[in-house]
């Protein structure tokens, strides 16, 4: 545990990728394989579910430290991280445990899940007394499922590849699914990650998916596309769907569905299980899971369209089409999917790529060839839940740009541009071809900051999380109030954030725990990706991915936007 804690500390202390790589290589080359297996799991984002309820950890820290509850709470507010707070307040100990990460996880921490509180209250202090402060903090982060450190999966991949002296794409391939909850890291599994490449590795194993190929943002104006990308006819253009990116793997008579986060989500989409029959073995499809049904015309307006009419049209009650992401969200987090939700929110997969066909890895074949085989497959399959993501055609980039203007009304985020002769890469690589996402500009409104809360981690003790409001009436209304509608905490530079923090402290009206209400003086342009009606919000509106686009120093509070502006965006 101590070695892993020291690795955490080394990774946390630097922003240099090379220093991080070196720290990981040093750790991996010294660690026992079973410990390294768990380290890879945590570093590449794996998180077991919370092992001990936070409430219980708090109670225990309060009891052991002899502090009053309120003082614990104040301390937590200053620190901004529960594991760190606990590690600072629990009694300090000399480090006495020489057990590695794997022993800690398997013999000590994982068995904690589900234990009765009395048992936990007895067992936990015996753990605390073996760990120094750094190891204690890391251990608590593992327990609370909040372990995060600034390394990307790509960097972990590179560290392992360097250690094993093999291609990092090969390691990426082997790592797919490694952090899924069903996977238990093991020495054997780790040794496979860093094993020398073998001939038969190519033959696919079980439900293992391929690393997703990820797109890069394209932000240049359309009139430069010809220069940047060449003629439009060399590109396969599709809508950019607002759904869940997924790979469908069909092998050995079985079906697996993987999300972009490399989580196995097969059970969450029962309506896709019929593909077990329709798809031949040795098939892997990349696509987007979306809600697909006929809109209820009375309440919902021109969102969505059919695949037969990829241009904006008037949806009717009989033709099914893509529905807003908000609907999909209703079923994402659910453990059990009732009959009603399956009827109300049915999904299909809009397929856009074919990664494996007849048991062969097709990723190094050109895009157009994969696409053409995909279309043949979809036709043969004739499944109501497997549809092609339509290819859009235009005379040139300007023409495509015009078509893209319909994105909002169609419920898509913009377009995807894929070079017709490019291979299917790994992650964000660019050497095998590039996918561009050409997104439409976000919605934006000018909103007023009314509440602020201190941030976490790096921003602990800075007021960095804000609640924004718009007016409930026009500027000339005799009486109007500010209605909160969104929270945002990203988009400001560190310098701006410190300035805002200082203003918040000066203009505080009231404090409620960690939250301060302020005299409204700050106006920001907020951007967001989607907007929908919501019963849960006071404003009656929910927005997606809100963030600050810029600080409107030029705009007085009275000139901020009103609810009417938001309502206009809904239609």
């Amino acid at each position: 545990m101590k070695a892993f804690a020291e690795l955490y500390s080394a990774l946390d202390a630097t922003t240099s990728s090379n220093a991080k790589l070196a720290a990981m290589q040093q750790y991996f080359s010294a660690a026992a394989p079973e410990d390294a297996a768990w380290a890879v799991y945590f570093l590449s984002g794996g998180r077991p579910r919370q092992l001990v309820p936070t409430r219980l950890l708090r109670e225990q820290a309060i009891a052991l430290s002899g502090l009053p509850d309120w003082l614990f709470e104040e301390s937590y507010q200053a620190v901004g991280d529960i594991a760190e707070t606990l590690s600072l307040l629990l009694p300090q100990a000399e480090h006495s445990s020489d057990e590695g990460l794997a022993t800690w996880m398997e013999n000590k921490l994982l068995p904690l899940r589900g234990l009765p509180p009395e048992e936990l209250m007895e067992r936990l202090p015996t753990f605390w007394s073996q760990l120094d402060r750094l190891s204690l903090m890391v251990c608590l982060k593992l327990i609370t499922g909040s372990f995060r450190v600034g390394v990307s999966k790509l960097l972990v991949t590179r560290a392992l590849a360097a250690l094993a002296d093999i291609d990092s794409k090969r390691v990426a391939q082997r790592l797919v699914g490694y952090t899924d909850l069903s996977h238990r890291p093991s020495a054997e599994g780790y040794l496979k990650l860093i094993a020398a490449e073998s001939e038969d590795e190519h033959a696919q194993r079980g439900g293992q998916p391929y690393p997703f190929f990820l797109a890069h943002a394209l932000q240049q104006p359309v009139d430069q596309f010809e220069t940047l990308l060449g003629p439009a006819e060399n590109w396969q253009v599709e809508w950019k769907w607002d759904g869940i990116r997924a790979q469908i793997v069909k092998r050995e008579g079985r079906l697996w569905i993987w999300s972009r986060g490399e989580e196995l989500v097969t059970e969450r989409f029962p309506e896709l299980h019929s593909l077990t029959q329709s798809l031949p073995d040795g098939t892997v499809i990349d696509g987007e899971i979306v809600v697909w049904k006929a809109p209820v015309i009375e309440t919902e307006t021109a969102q969505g369209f059919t695949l037969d009419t990829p241009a904006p049209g008037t949806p009717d009650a009989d033709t099914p089409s893509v529905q807003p992401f908000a609907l999909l969200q209703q079923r994402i987090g659910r453990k059990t999917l009732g009959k009603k939700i399956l009827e109300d929110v049915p999904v299909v997969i809009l397929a856009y790529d074919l990664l494996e066909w007849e048991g062969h890895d097709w990723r190094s074949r050109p895009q157009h060839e994969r696409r053409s085989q995909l279309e043949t497959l979809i036709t043969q399959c004739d499944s109501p839940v497997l549809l092609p993501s339509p290819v859009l055609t235009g005379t040139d980039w300007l023409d495509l740009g015009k078509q893209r203007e319909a994105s909002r009304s169609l419920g898509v985020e913009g377009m995807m541009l894929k070079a017709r002769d490019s291979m299917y890469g790994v992650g964000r690589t660019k050497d095998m071809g590039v996918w561009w996402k050409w997104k439409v500009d976000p919605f934006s409104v000018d909103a007023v900051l009314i509440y602020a809360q201190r941030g976490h981690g790096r921003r602990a003790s800075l007021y960095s999380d804000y609640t924004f409001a718009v007016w409930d009436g026009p500027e000339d209304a005799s009486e109007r109030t500010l209605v909160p509608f969104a929270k945002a905490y990203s988009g400001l530079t560190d310098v701006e954030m410190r300035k805002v923090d200082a203003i918040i402290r000066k203009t505080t009206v009231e404090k409620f725990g960690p939250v301060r209400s302020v005299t409204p003086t700050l106006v920001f342009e907020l951007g967001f990706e989607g907007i929908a009606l919501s019963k849960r919000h006071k404003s009656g509106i929910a927005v997606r991915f809100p963030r600050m686009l810029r600080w409107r120093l030029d705009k007085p509070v009275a000139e901020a936007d009103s609810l009417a502006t938001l309502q206009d965006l809904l239609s």
Partner: protein
Amino acid sequence: MDLVIARPEGLYCPPGDFYIDPWRPVERAVITHGHGDHAHTGNQHYLAAAPGEGILRQRLGQDINLQTLEYGESITHHGVKLSLHPAGHVLGSAQVRLEYEGEVWVASGDYKVEPDGTCEPFEPVRCHTFITESTFGLPIYKWAPQSEIFSGINDWWRENAAVGKASVLFAYSFGKAQRILHGIDPSIGPILVHGAVEPLNRVYRAAGIRIPETQYAGDFKKTDPALRQALIIAPPSAGGSTWMRRFGEFSDAFASGWMMLRGPRRRRGVDRGFVLSDHADWPGLLWAIENTGAERVMVTHGSVAILVRYLREQGLDAQGFTTEYGAEEDEVPATPEPTGEATA
């Protein structure tokens, strides 16, 4: 009768008609120590502890009207008996003991309870009312012994020197810098300092404090091989400035009590944070308060509301005093004060 009250000019002693660490110009000012938030210019008369004279004259002007007292020596002014006692914060730092009609108050300015070898250690003074700071007034702040911190700094310096990297350590130029210089192992390599640090080193050396030999960093060329082995002590304001370019490849670190927490450490953007403070940690504050035997405690700058509430729950009569010292209530400095004066 209250021997000290908070006035817009600063902490004021009504029967004695003088101020303690006033932030606006007054007739008579008793100065606890030379940091910029406690020692201001423009006062007619100054009174301070003798070991701090060099510092005060260096910072406020050689010609200030300054009277000094040895620690423990007393004078009487308008019937108020006043004496100064070591606060263990920086060279010349003092607690102000006031006695009037049988009532004793102690104003402690800033203090630290661990002896550090660069100034007289903190001495608890019995009193009825104790005025305490609260910079690190939360139980999350608990300092390790300074010997551990110094060996951490030595190790970091040695590791850097081994790979030919300069070691730049940011520390406030008055107090913290000298404490580090006094505590580290000077045999590891050459020690360079920023121009803001050296004048204070001279004052410390003149006071008989052991400060190893230091060289002015500005005299070195980027190509000088000595830099690859050097420790450079600079005020936080030098971080990110063009002044840093001369060091080529370097590792940087910051020495401050705020480095206790990961957030401020990460925000600072340095490679290492060394938890080293001139202020008392939470156990230190409570220990100091207890050892004065005071039943009444007035809390200034830092976590005022928190310490007041805690002390009240312990049965003491505690109240907050609004001052302009240090950072505002609950405010962890996100950026170093550009002057590098308010210490941590």
